[in-house]
């Protein structure tokens, strides 16, 4: 056996199973039963005890099934090859165990076909407890998969020696337990929901249960015991919609992204993150990534549900706002000392609530929105600029309390979200584009069949249809930003002083321009090559000076 420097410093460990993408061939009950049995294998040879918690309850060990790239450094590779991996003990993702969902998982197979989930789970949980791969090919901690009869499975001496080196032998039954007594034979479910000793009794309505996996009739009696809080929600679960494209009516459980009404939408590391309740999605090119939604706490341990706003700061840290507090994260780790009250974030910004925050790349200021006003915040001086807050109408006809703002890839536009609609603001012209709001569910989340929002009435066209709306003058030298300086003589009601000329470049012109820009240099290069070639040819054909050909000893004959 081989040990790492990491081990758990407590005897009671909690685990959660994320039931999304469990192997259909096994179903929910057989999968959870196999994993619980695997935990039982290690608890029998150590003083450790394991308590199952609903997913999202910040358990020590999270087990999930995923395929391909799933957010850590070791993407799975389809069937065969890599079967699973685990993180060694530690906070955050320490102890987490991932199984490749594309493997032909099986249980108790007599014919050694497929990959036995129980055996792999025992191996990976060995890593989750701190064991490395063993050099003993017969040990369960040997790096390669080898079938053995799971029904009367027992750990190899090498495995037992390794794990007991770290945690010691199991507590002898006559010795006083170091932690509240557990019933060894149902080690997996240790505390019935009603015992007051569990700090946060599991909420039966909040569990990750998948309707597709029907309860396995052969196992139901033990799971149906009143002490198992997992059973009851099975009957009420309407479950996640595996196909987020068409909206479905939800009662509880992970929401469908096509329902809209998100808490906030933001870009982190250039990717769109959508938050709602205790869930979040990652959206990429109009498509929700696989394995999402995920509970927020799976990645941002310590971040509460129902956040108000989030943005990526200029230094790459993520700031989350909820009520009058904010959290600072470096990647998935909350920095010590957070949450803190809003007034400590900077001077002059709202202190009760922030609806939306965005670091605005064009002028490198941060904008906070709250209610129907917005603030411009200087990250360097950590204070809002003097003549703020200003009315939100500067960003166009957006509603009060927007729920998110993010930039387009090229930084030319700012999208502002609320409900299931979004508005677009042209950063160069510093004015709102027309033809909005549009449906963010359609344009960004890939939902179909959702209704379009009804467009905002355009005040001018309302008054006398058929005329062009008067455009506000261009911003002055205060720079590119929606908050232009309004100076005397430059107010909105003497438009003839400045006329806004809008030149629309059609695509075809730009195509022709591109064509010209490509062909001209190519022609030039061609000419140069031809010129060089002709010079070389002429040099090659040129005779040596005749005088050199005939060497005349004296000029007399010639004369």
């Amino acid at each position, binding site marked *: 056996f081989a040990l790492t420097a990491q081990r758990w410093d407590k005897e009671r460990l909690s685990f959660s199973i994320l039931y999304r993408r469990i192997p259909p061939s096994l179903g929910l009950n057989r999968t959870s039963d196999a994993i619980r049995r695997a935990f039982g294998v290690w608890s029998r040879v150590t003083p450790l005890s394991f308590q199952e918690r609903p997913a999202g309850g910040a358990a020590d060990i999270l087990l999930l099934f995923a395929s391909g790239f799933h957010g850590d450094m070791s993407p799975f590779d389809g069937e065969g*090859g890599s079967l*699973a*991996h*685990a993180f060694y003990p530690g*906070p955050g993702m320490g102890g987490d165990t991932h199984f490749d969902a594309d493997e032909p998982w099986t249980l108790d197979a007599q014919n050694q076909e497929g990959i036995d989930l129980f055996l792999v789970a025992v191996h990976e949980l060995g890593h989750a407890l701190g064991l*490395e*791969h063993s050099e003993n090919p017969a040990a369960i901690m040997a790096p390669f*998969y080898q079938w053995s009869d799971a029904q009367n499975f027992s750990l190899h001496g090498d495995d037992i020696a390794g794990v007991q080196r770290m945690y010691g032998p199991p507590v002898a039954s006559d010795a006083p337990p170091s932690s509240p007594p557990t019933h060894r034979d149902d080690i997996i479910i240790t505390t019935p929901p009603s015992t007051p000793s569990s700090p946060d009794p599991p909420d039966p309505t909040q569990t990750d249960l998948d309707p597709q996996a029907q309860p396995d009739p052969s196992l139901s009696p033990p799971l149906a015991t009143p002490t198992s809080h997992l059973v009851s929600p099975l009957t009420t679960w309407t479950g996640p919609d595996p196909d987020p494209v068409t909206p479905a009516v939800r009662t509880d459980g992970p929401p469908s992204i096509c329902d809209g009404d998100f808490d906030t939408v933001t870009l982190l590391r250039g990717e769109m993150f959508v938050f709602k309740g205790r869930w979040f999605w990652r959206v990429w090119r109009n498509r929700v990534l696989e394995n999402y939604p995920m509970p927020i706490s799976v990645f941002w341990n310590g971040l509460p549900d129902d956040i108000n706003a989030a943005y990526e700061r200029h230094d790459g840290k993520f700031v989350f706002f909820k009520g009058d507090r904010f959290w600072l994260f470096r990647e998935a780790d909350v920095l010590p000392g957070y949450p803190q009250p809003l007034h400590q974030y900077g001077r002059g910004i709202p202190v009760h609530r922030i609806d939306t925050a965005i670091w605005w790349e064009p002028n490198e200021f941060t904008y906070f929105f709250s209610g129907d006003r917005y603030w411009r915040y200087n990250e360097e001086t950590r204070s809002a600029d003097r003549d703020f807050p200003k009315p939100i109408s500067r960003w166009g006809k957006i509603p009060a309390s927007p729920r998110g703002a993010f930039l387009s890839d090229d930084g030319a536009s700012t999208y502002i979200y609320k409900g299931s609609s979004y508005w677009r603001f042209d950063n160069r012209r510093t004015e709102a584009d027309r033809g909005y709001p549009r449906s963010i569910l359609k344009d960004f989340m890939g939902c179909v069949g959702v209704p379009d929002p009804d467009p905002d009435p355009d005040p001018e066209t309302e008054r006398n249809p058929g005329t062009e709306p008067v455009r506000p003058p261009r911003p002055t030298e205060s720079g590119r930003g929606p908050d232009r300086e309004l100076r005397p003589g430059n107010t909105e009601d003497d438009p003839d002083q400045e006329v806004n000329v809008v030149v629309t470049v059609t695509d075809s012109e730009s195509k022709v321009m591109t064509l010209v820009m490509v062909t001209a240099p190519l022609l030039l290069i061609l000419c140069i090559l031809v010129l060089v070639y002709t010079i070389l040819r002429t040099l090659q054909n040129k005779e040596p000076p005749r005088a050199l050909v005939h060497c005349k000893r004296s000029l007399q004959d010639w004369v």
Partner: protein
Amino acid sequence: SAETPDEENLNPEEWLHRFGYLSRSGLQMSGPLSAQILTRAVSDMQRVYGLAPTGRLDAATLAAMQRPRCTLPDRTPEAGVGGVGTRR
């Protein structure tokens, strides 16, 4: 050695590196020294897999490299010391 069906996309050196038997520098060296390092890495892997430690990439060794296995490497001598929650 006899070819196994999908042997053609198995890169033994890359496999040895991925699972910790060969360091990247070992891969880049050339000449007798790298052959020696390679042989030693192969025999190390054969020992872990319960094969005869010949150091040669024979059919049994290549077949063992194709077996489904855990993603974690078998040798990470330097990583994880004192690191908490760090991923192997």
